[in-house]
């Protein structure tokens, strides 16, 4: 019996690896461009950051002659093996989703100079890596304005995922946007945690939002991955508003999601894949902001009755002013 159990255990432990090996090696045929993507810890159905990246590559798969494979690492230590596996099998374009993959992609890209890499939310100093950066602070400024115009209590909330400079960028932009409308507004802010488990703890997200609503906040902007879905639950329970992030989340809890700060990772990833297929891949830093619609906010059938037309006009004016440089939004990461 003991040997039987042992053999079973060995098989189980080999299963994911064995399975992956076969997958990576498969379909090595043809002139198709092979695209591999390694997601962040949140996983591709976080309805937010990773989901946006996923919809970009899926769209590319539909339109373009590519072979697409993805990996969702279960924990941070399995990111590097996944990236290296793609590289070993000669994937032409390897995408790393999330700042945490910065150092890993930098290393792997140097070992495979003939391959191309895409890094989202961080910069890798290697000519064969396209580093995609987004001006989240500008979009956060705009949704901060909408929040301030909507708030009746004069108190807003912000719930971030992991307490890191990237998320501070969302927070400061949001605060500045809110103060641009109402200099006396109070913005409460909380972070779910200080490790990457913070992206996957909706229970804590809910509890943080509860605390903010109880302190008088009536709009909460969340930038917290899966934990942010707990913020939406709280918004519904307290009959208040929340603001979505990265992908358009207005549909998740209709009527309670005021708007979503859009980070068009989907468009950015799509265009890089397209460039790769057409042989026009360019390494270096690519910046997406309001001016090229890389950053924006969502108005659709779920929320258009929540925001009056004159507010939208003011926000659109501010958007023009930011693009023109008349309004300066602090970039918390640049400090």
């Amino acid at each position, binding site marked *: *019996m*003991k040997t039987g*159990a042992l053999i079973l*255990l060995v098989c189980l432990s080999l299963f994911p690896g064995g399975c992956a090996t076969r997958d990576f090696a498969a379909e090595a045929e043809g002139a198709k461009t092979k695209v591999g993507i390694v997601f962040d810890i949140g*996983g*591709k*159905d*976080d*309805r937010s950051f990773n989901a946006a990246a996923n919809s970009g590559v899926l769209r590319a798969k539909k339109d373009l002659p590519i072979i697409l494979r993805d990996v*969702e690492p*279960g924990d941070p230590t399995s990111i590097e093996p996944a990236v290296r596996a793609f590289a070993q099998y000669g994937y032409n374009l390897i995408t790393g989703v999330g700042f945490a993959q910065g150092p890993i992609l930098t290393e792997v890209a140097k070992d495979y100079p003939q391959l191309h890499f895409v890094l989202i939310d961080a910069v890798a100093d290697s000519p064969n890596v396209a580093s995609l950066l987004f001006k989240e602070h500008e979009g956060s400024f705009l949704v901060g304005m909408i929040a301030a115009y909507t708030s009746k209590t004069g108190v807003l909330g912000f719930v971030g995922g992991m*307490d890191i400079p990237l998320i501070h960028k969302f927070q400061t932009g949001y605060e500045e946007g809110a103060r641009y409308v109402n200099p006396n507004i109070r913005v*409460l*802010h*909380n*972070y779910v*945690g*200080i490790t990457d*488990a913070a992206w*996957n*703890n*909706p*229970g*804590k997200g*809910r*509890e*943080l939002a*509860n*605390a903010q609503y*109880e*302190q008088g906040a009536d709009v909460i902007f969340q930038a917290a991955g*899966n934990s942010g*879905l*707990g913020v*939406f*639950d709280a918004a*519904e*329970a307290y009959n208040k508003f929340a603001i979505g992030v990265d992908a358009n989340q207005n549909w*998740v*809890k209709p009527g309670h999601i005021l708007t979503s700060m859009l980070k068009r990772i989907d468009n950015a990833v799509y265009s890089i894949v397209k460039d790769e297929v057409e042989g026009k891949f360019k390494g270096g830093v690519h910046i997406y902001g309001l001016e090229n619609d890389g950053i924006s906010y969502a108005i659709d059938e779920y929320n258009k009755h929540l925001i009056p037309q004159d507010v939208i006009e003011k926000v659109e004016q501010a958007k023009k002013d930011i693009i023109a440089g008349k309004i300066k939004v602090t970039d918390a990461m640049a400090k």
Partner: protein
Amino acid sequence: MRNIFNYTLIASTIRLSTPLILAALGGLYSERAGVINIALEGMMLAGAFTAAVVTVFTHNPWIGLLSAVAAGLLVAALHAMATIKYRADQVVSGTAINILFLGVPALLSGALFESTGATPQLPRDQTLPDAPIFNPQTSPALASIFNQKPLVYLAFILVAMTVYVIYRTRFGLRLRAVGENPEAADTAGVGVNRMRYAGVLISGALAALGGAYLSIGQNSLFTRNMTAGRGFIALAALIFGKWHPVGAMLACLFFGLAEAVAIRMQGTVNIPNQFIQMIPYILTMVVLAGLIGRATPPKALGVAYAKE
């Protein structure tokens, strides 16, 4: 200070403690019978996932809750078979279950919802309701503290019931006996392994309830690894509470309070967030090391029993 210490703190403490209390009680039944249960985390995940999935399909959170219990029993049966029947190392079996339930939800939700771990979000009227005891309009403080999910009340009732069962019933006496001295219990005619099966199974059911509280009570969906270590904290609370139901409950309330205070300190007190988030754990170590004294586990904990 009034921003931190007010009635919402009490409400928050209760909400945060509930899944811990349920899981810690679960751990108590198993460990009192002599089977280490570090699989609490995996059992919670199994319960949370099953509750969310079944509720998505049946639109009824109560059926979801019952299914979670069934799932907990199933996972516990796995742990019990491995450790009692086949006398596998209890820590290894528990670890295997924890790792297994990082993956199983991703696999199943892929088949069911084409997702990799998350379930669709449930509408609010399909999650467990709050008990409408006080009117939030006329008495907001009382409503905030007492209008909780039924599982919250169940958790505290179960603590009282466990005290009774463990210390006042024949079942409890036998359970403790097989955890302390299985040879003597066996000589006295107690079915050691049968008692241990019972302990581990109850453990799974309770831990799964704790998980279901997270997915269909506090929240409205399951996401990958959403327990975020609560099973391990429950286990720590059990040890902290010296394997006594009331002690474990107090320890869970203490963890809940520390976290609720940490939540309210963020942004109101000028201390770095990294430090604030350490407070619950630092307090635990201080209390464990200094105040609580020696915690003595059941004597036969971790030792499989083989009839000679």
